[in-house]
C-alpha cells in the first residue's frame, strides 16, 4: 500500500482545493455535536484523540429526511416529478474507524434485492479519508465488534497522526488513488517505519463481549427471562438509533407543499418507538419497551449478521454515551454473554 506524508497546512490547502472544485467536504463540527459540510478549509477537524461526535455522518448518505419524488395534481391526474441528484464527491474527512465502515455496512440492506438509488447515488460519490484513532473511553468497544482503531479498513485514504502537524497518508483503495492524483503536490514521500511506530502505540478498548456468543445465545433464547425487563428503563426516545452510524430504519410519509403540490419523504425512524410496528388493528407485535429493546440488540448482533454477514454495530459507543437513562449497549450484550457462558 502506497504511503505518503501530508502536513496539517497542506491538508488545509487540499481541502481548500476540494471545496473550490465542488466537493462536499464533511467534517466533524468544532463542538463535536455532529458532522457538517464545511465552506472554509480552516474549519477542518481531524479528531483522532477526542470523544466522537454525538451523531455519526450517516445523514450525508442516508438523510434524516429526503424527498423521493414530488407530486402535482392536475384534475383527476397527477404528475410525479423526480429531482436530479447533485453531482460532486462527498468527502468524509477525519472518519474514525468506527465511522468509516458505516456506509459499507448499511449498503448491504439497501442493495440485497431492490436497489435504493437514493442511498447508492450518494454512497458512490463518497470518499472516506479516515484517521487512526487514539481515543478510548468507557463506552468505546470497536475492538469487540472486530473494528481495529488502527486499521484503514473502510477508508479510501487513511491518515495516521505522526505529530501535531504531520500525518502519514495511506492510499488504500483505487478510488482513493484516483481521487488524490491531482493533489500529489501536497504530499511528500512516506516513512512507513514511523507510521508503524505510531500505529503500534494505539491500544484499542478491551473487548467487552463475544459477538458470536451473543448471536448464538439470542437465537436459542428468544423467550429468556433476561429479556423480560431488558428495556424497563428505556424511555423510547430513539437517540440511540439516530446517533448510530449504521441504524437505517425509516418511515415513508407524504408532505403537502401547497394546495396542489406535495412530496413523498423518506424519514429516519427507530425501532425503539412504540408506534414503529403498531398495526392499524391495534395489535402491536413489539408491544412494550422490553420487546423493542430485544429487537435492537437482536437486530444488531444476530439478525443482520444472519442475513448480511455483518455486525450492525461499529462499537463507537454513541448510543450509550447519549442515552438519557444510561443504557450501555455493550454492558447489555456483556450480560447476555455472561448468561450464555453459564449454560
Amino acid at each position, binding site marked *: 500500500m502506497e504511503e505518503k506524508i501530508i502536513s496539517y497546512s497542506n491538508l488545509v490547502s487540499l481541502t481548500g482545493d476540494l471545496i473550490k472544485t465542488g466537493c462536499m467536504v464533511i467534517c466533524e463540527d468544532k463542538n463535536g455535536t455532529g458532522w457538517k459540510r464545511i465552506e472554509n478549509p480552516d474549519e477542518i477537524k481531524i479528531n483522532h484523540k477526542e470523544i466522537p461526535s454525538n451523531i455519526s455522518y450517516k445523514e450525508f448518505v442516508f438523510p434524516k429526511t429526503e424527498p*423521493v*419524488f414530488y*407530486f402535482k*395534481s392536475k384534475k*383527476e*391526474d*397527477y404528475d*410525479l416529478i*423526480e429531482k436530479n441528484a447533485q453531482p460532486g464527491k462527498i468527502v468524509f474527512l477525519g472518519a474514525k474507524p468506527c465511522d468509516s465502515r458505516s456506509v459499507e455496512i448499511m449498503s448491504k*440492506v*439497501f442493495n*440485497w*434485492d*431492490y*436497489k*435504493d*438509488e*437514493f442511498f447508492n447515488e450518494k454512497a458512490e460519490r463518497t470518499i472516506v479519508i479516515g484517521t487512526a484513532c487514539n481515543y478510548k473511553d468507557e463506552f468505546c468497544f470497536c475492538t469487540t465488534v472486530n473494528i481495529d482503531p488502527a486499521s484503514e479498513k473502510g477508508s479510501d485514504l487513511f491518515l495516521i497522526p505522526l505529530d501535531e502537524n504531520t500525518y502519514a497518508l495511506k492510499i488504500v483503495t483505487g478510488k482513493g488513488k484516483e481521487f488524490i492524483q491531482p493533489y500529489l503536490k501536497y504530499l511528500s514521500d512516506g516513512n512507513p517505519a514511523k507510521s508503524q511506530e505510531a500505529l503500534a502505540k494505539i491500544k484499542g478498548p478491551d473487548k467487552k463481549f463475544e459477538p458470536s456468543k451473543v448471536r448464538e445465545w439470542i437465537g436459542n433464547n*428468544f*423467550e429468556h427471562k433476561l429479556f423480560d425487563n431488558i428495556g424497563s428503563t428505556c424511555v423510547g426516545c430513539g437517540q440511540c438509533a439516530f446517533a448510530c452510524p449504521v441504524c*437505517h*430504519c*425509516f*418511515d*415513508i*410519509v*407524504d408532505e*403537502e407543499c401547497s394546495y396542489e403540490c*406535495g412530496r*413523498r419523504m*423518506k424519514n429516519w*425512524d427507530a*425501532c425503539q418507538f412504540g408506534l*414503529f*410496528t*403498531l*398495526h*392499524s*388493528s391495534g*395489535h402491536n*407485535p*413489539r408491544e412494550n419497551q422490553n*420487546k423493542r429493546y430485544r*429487537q435492537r440488540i*437482536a*437486530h444488531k448482533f*444476530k*439478525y*443482520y449478521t*444472519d*442475513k448480511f454477514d455483518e455486525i450492525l454495530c461499529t462499537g463507537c459507543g454513541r448510543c450509550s454515551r447519549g442515552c438519557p437513562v444510561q443504557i450501555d449497549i455493550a454492558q447489555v450484550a456483556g450480560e447476555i454473554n455472561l448468561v450464555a457462558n453459564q449454560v
Partner: protein
Amino acid sequence: MNIYKPELMEVIEIIDETADTKTFKLRFKDPEIAKSFDFKAGQFGEYSVFGEGESTFCIASAPTRKDYIECSFKQVGKVTTALRRISIGDTIGFRGPYGNNFPVEEMKGKNVVFIAGGIGLAPVRCVIWNVLDLRDQFKDVTIVYGARSVADLVYKRELEEWKNMPGVKTVVTVDPGGEDENWKGEIGFVPAIVEKTAPKAENSVAIICGPPVMIKYTLPVLNKLGFKDENIITTLENRMKCGLGKCGRCNVGNVYVCKDGPVFTYDQMKKLPAEY
C-alpha cells in the same frame, strides 16, 4: 430506478362491501404497464393517496384475470380514510407486486381448503379465483368463511357464486349473535365450523387467513383433522412501509415479512421468534 415511485392507477369501479370496507377495481394509466403487469396469488402492493401516504394491502383479485387489479380495505387510519373519499375516475398510486406467493403450482392435483375470517378473505379470495379459474387442475375445493355478523361479510355476491359451483363446498358462518332473521348459513366461530365441516387432510392443502385469534384456534383443529404443518399456509400481515426489505418494521427475527413473506407455512412460522 426510483424504487419508491409508484405507478398511477385509475379507479374504475368501487364496491361497498360493508359499512367500513370497500373494494376498488384499478387499472394502470400507462397502457404499456397495464399490458405487462403480472403478479402471483398472495403478493401485495403499496397503495397511495397523494398527500396522505401509502398503505399496504394484498392484491385481492386473481392473477388469472388480466387488465385490472382489485384491492379491498377497511377504513381504519389516515390513508384508508382518504381512500374512502376516492371516486370512480380518480387516480391513486401503486407500487408492487411485492413479496412471495402462495404455492399454487404445487397445489395442483390436490384438495384445497380455504379458511378465512373477516377481511382476511381478501388474500384468500385471490387464490380461490386463481384455483377456480383453473378448476380442472385441482381436486375438491372447500371454503369456510366467517365474520362477526352478516353485515361484516365481504364479497357477498361471490359467496353465492361459490355456493352454486359444482365441486365447491362453501360454508359461511357468523359469530353467535351476528345472525339476522334471514340468515341461512352457519352460526358459530370459524374453528368450530372447520371442525364440523371436517375437510379431509389427505392430499390436501389448507390456506388460512384472518384475525390472529381465529388463526390461533383454527390451527390445532387442522392438526387434529390430520393436516401437517407444512400443508397449512397463511400470510403474516405485519405493518410495512417500503415493501422492499429496507425500512425495518416488518422484521420478525431475521425474516423480512415483505420479502421473505408474506406467505408462510405453519411449519415455517413455528420456527420464527413469536413476535408477529
